[in-house]
Every structure is written in C-alpha cells, then in structure tokens.
C-alpha cells in the first residue's frame, strides 16, 4: 500500500497545481469565448456546460480573420513577420551554432558563455537597448548619417516592419542557437569522416550528413521560437506601437486591456491556441522522445 501510493503522492502537489492553475484557466477561456455577453453591462458571461456552448463569437472572429475581414490584415502580417524572422534567425543562427560546435576550439567555452548571456538579460532590457539605439538621434542614425548612407536621420521607431522584424530576430535568436548547438554538438564525427573517406566533398558531406542529422535540432529550435513569436505583442509595441505593424497578440492585448470586449479577445486566444496546437504537439513529442532516450541510456 505504502509503496503503491508513494510515487503518485510525490507527483500529487505538482499535478494538482497544474490542474487548478493551468487546465481550469484554459477551460475558463473556452467558457468565455463560447459564452455570451451581458447585453446591458456588456460583460462576458461564461457558459460552463459544454453542451450549451455558443459558437457565435468564435464564428464572428473567424469571419473577421477571413480575407476581407477586419482582422485579416493582422493575421497575414503576423504570419509574415514570424516567417521572415524565423528565416533570418536560421540564416544567422545555423552558421554560428555550427562554428561553435565544430571549429571553435579553445574559444568554445568563452563563446558558449557569450551565447548563454542573453538568457540572463531581461528581454525587455534588450528591447530597450534597441529603442535607445534606433531613436532619431541614436547611434544607428548618427552612424548612417555620418557615413552618408542616409541624408537625414530616419524615424526607425515610427512603425517600420523592418524594425519589428529586427527586434523579433534579436529577441528570439538566442533561444534558437542553443538547441541548434546541442544538436550539432551531438553529431558523431566518425560519420563525417566516413563520408569523406568514401569520397564526399566537404560540401556534400555537409548536405548529406550534417544537415539531416541536425534536422531535429533545427525543427525543435524553430518551433521553440515560433510559438512565443506568435503570441508576442510587447516587441511590436516597444519598437513601433503603430497600428500598421501590430500583430495578433496586440489584437488580444487590445481587447483585454483597451476595449470592453474580453469575449472577442478570448475567442482570438482560443483560435490562436488551436492554430498553434500542431506546433506544440510536435515540440512536446520531441521533448518526450529525448527524455525517453535519456531514460534508456
């Protein structure tokens, strides 16, 4: 009896905590999104019984998200920003991770510390740093005017998509490089030596050996940064705050903090979560498999 309940007993407080403060809250979002709105006070009225759920608001939001709807611009922009930022992160991150895993030699530990350092610097402080640099009389404008790349200072913070994408890349790239580094570091060099011995050029050894073996790291890291980017609202708000660069997260933020319609905000949240489920499932599967391998080893 004692043996049987010992380990579940250890897990109990944590599981209870997550049920009460993670599962129940998510159910509350569903209940509000699929609930009704008080016509007089215009406050959300959640419906707790799934049999009575009212899909009206979710359908309404879906209509607005469809091409031509009021949210379609934001939705398309969000996907564009995330896709471009992800591509840039991979373009910069892969060579960096590859170099440190493969060739860094004596500088490897120093470089690793420098890679981890951004984790310990507050995300908001890193954004603040760019706000300072990109201000009208900041270092970036001064440098560009000094080198005559620009005739006069440019208002980088006035709602430029490129600024938002730069900020997203700067903010999330550290979270991509470490998984990439771990995946590349794990590759057994004898595979590469075998490929070279069998006549592969360095390039084809990279394409046929290194790249496939780092695929799990690439996908895992990509998903790891894609998920928070889709929910981001503070990055565009800090470096632009113009409506023409707002993302889907800003829309949610607006409905809760600005407007009186939390029901629509909750409906967008539910749809966003549903959209991201595929990515989340994939990532959880990779963690699960990695921990299985760890357990087996």
């Amino acid at each position, binding site marked *: 009896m004692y043996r049987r309940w*010992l380990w579940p007993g250890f897990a109990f407080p944590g599981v209870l905590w997550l049920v009460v403060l993670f599962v129940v809250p998510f159910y509350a979002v569903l209940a509000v999104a699929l609930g009704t709105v008080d016509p007089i006070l215009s406050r959300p009225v959640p419906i707790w019984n799934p049999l009575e759920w009212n899909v009206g608001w979710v359908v309404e939001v879906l209509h607005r998200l469809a091409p031509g709807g009021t949210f379609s611009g934001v939705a398309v922009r969000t996907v564009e920003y995330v896709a471009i930022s992800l591509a840039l992160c991979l373009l910069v991150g892969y060579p*960096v991770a590859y*170099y440190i895993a493969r060739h860094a030699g004596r500088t490897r530990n120093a470089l690793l510390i*420098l890679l981890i350092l951004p984790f310990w610097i507050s995300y908001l402080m890193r954004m603040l740093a760019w706000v*300072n640099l990109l201000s009208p*009389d900041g*270092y970036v404008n001064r440098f560009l005017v000094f080198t005559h790349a620009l005739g006069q200072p440019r208002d980088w913070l006035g709602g430029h998509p490129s600024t938002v994408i730069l900020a997203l890349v700067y903010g999330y790239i550290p979270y991509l490089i470490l998984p990439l580094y771990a995946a590349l570091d794990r590759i057994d060099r004898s595979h590469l030596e075998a490929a070279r011995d069998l006549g592969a050029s360095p390039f084809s050894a990279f394409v046929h050996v290194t790249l496939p073996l780092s695929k799990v790291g690439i996908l895992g890291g990509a998903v790891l940064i894609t998920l928070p980017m889709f929910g981001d609202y503070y990055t565009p708000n800090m470096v632009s705050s113009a409506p023409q660069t707002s993302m889907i997260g800003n829309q949610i933020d607006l409905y809760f903090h600005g407007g009186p319609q939390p029901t629509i905000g909750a409906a967008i949240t539910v749809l966003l979560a549903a959209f991201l489920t595929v990515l989340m499932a994939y990532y959880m599967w990779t963690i699960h498999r990695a921990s299985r391998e760890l357990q087996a080893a």
Partner: protein
Amino acid sequence: MSIVAEGQPKERLPAWSRFRGWTTNPWGRPRFLVVVTWAYVLWSIVPVLIAIQFSFNATRSRTAWQGFSTRWYWGDPVDSVWHDPTLRHALVQSLKLASADVLIATPIGVLLAIGLARWQGRGSRASNFLMLFPLVTPEIVMGVSLLLVFTQVFTFVHTGTVAQILGHVTFSISYVVVIVRGRLFSIGKQYEEAAADLGASPSAALVRVLFPLLMPAIVAGAAVVFAVSIDDFVISQWLSSGGGTDTVPIQIYSATRAAPLPSTNAIASVMLVVTLGAIALAFFVWRAFTRGERRTGAKPTESLGVFEI
C-alpha cells in the same frame, strides 16, 4: 617571410580582396564562420552594453553621451532609482515575486520530477504530458487564461501580488521538473538500490541518498526559476493590479512607450546585476555540490538542459 617583406615593397592587394582571400581560404580555418560568429556575438551583446553606458549619463538623454554620473541611480532627488517610489517599488515587487516563486516552485517541481520518474501507474503518462504543456504554451495564452480564471472562477484571488505569484509558479514548475528529471535519469536507480540492500528504508534512501545526489539539479532549477521569474513580463502584466504591483519589466515597458529617462536604463542595469549575481551564486553552490564528480558527467550547460532539447 618577414625578411622578404622587409627587403622589397610587397605588392598590396586592395583591402577587400585581402579580406576575401582571408575568409575563403579553403586550407585554413573556416574564417567565414569566424567572422559571422563574432559579428553575431558582438551584435547580441553591444546594444546592451550601450544601454548600460547611458544609465550613467549625466543628462536626461539616452542617446547623446554627456559625461559620467550616478545621478540616475541615486543622485537625482526625484527621478533616480533610489528616490523614485515607482521604480523602487518595481524593484521590490520583482524580487518579491522571484523569491516566492523559487521557494514554492522548486520543492513542488522536485517532488513532481521524482514522482513522474518513478511512478509507473496509470495517470503517469497523462501527468507527464500535462507537465510539458506550460513549456510550450505562448505566454499570452497563459496570461489570458489566468486573468479570466481569477476574474470569473477563483474570484477570491484578486489580481495583484498573490495572483502574480500563482501565475509565476505555474509556468516555473515545468522548468524545475525538466532539469531535475535529467539528473534523475543520469544517476539511475543503482544508488537507491544499494542503499536498500544495505538496509535503508525507502524514505531513508530518499533523504540520505537521492536528495544529496539531486542537489546540483535542484540548485540549477532554482536559479533558472529565479531568472525566468525576474525576466517575466507577460504574466506579471496580465495579473498586475497596477500601482505597487508593477514589476521592473513592466516599468521598462511602460516607460519606453512614454518618455524614458536614463533611470529606466539604470533600473534595467540593476536588475541585470541582480540576475547575474544570483546565477553566479548558484554556479558556485552547484560546483560545490558536484565536486568530485568526473568531469565527463556534469557540465553546467547540461544542467540547463531545458534549453538544449
């Protein structure tokens, strides 16, 4: 080589060609990668160093350097971190949330990790699955759901410090579990079994064998929880009730959107020093606990396994 160069004027290629030759030399080290890597590292660190520099600016500008001063830390009687009550409260609130988070999430997470690793029964798989969810849920989804649960269901919890602590613990538990579980797998069951063979009861084996062996991971987990809690913006903001419950990241956010002074840079720098201090402390404790272990086994980066998967 140098003798020849001294003897006759060497033909100098244009700078760009020399640079290209240096980066693409197929027999040397992959210099192209060297350039990219160091450029990236500089790009990732230098903006923050400049932000720290301007926290010491003598004037109200965050963009034009006008000499060194500490007025934004304590010199200025109104707007310095020391004298501005909003900034001081934000600092206190951030530290309060992070400490409470470490004290609550670490023990719960350690127990959950042990339980999930050893429990073979029916609910084990589902619990494991549930534990992974907070790691992948976008923060805004968690923020919305916690806000709604505190305004619609658990209405006795008002937004503010308590709600913020509950929220922070919710997203922190999983970090502790993943870190501690990695260690549990790598030490295996043999030490506990040896203790049992020598006559220890399960609880004695747990307290006297397993916990000491887990200490490095527990320390690493606590450090990561402290760091993610200090760094958190979204959950703190959604569950803030304004005024005294704004944390440092919230202050940075709202100040940046209004008209930031160098004191914003100053409070961000203070926070950075606090975080780095906590990490350094954790590192030394971690090293004390892993002394004597073979160097092949434990690397600091491995204890931070959360980010490696």
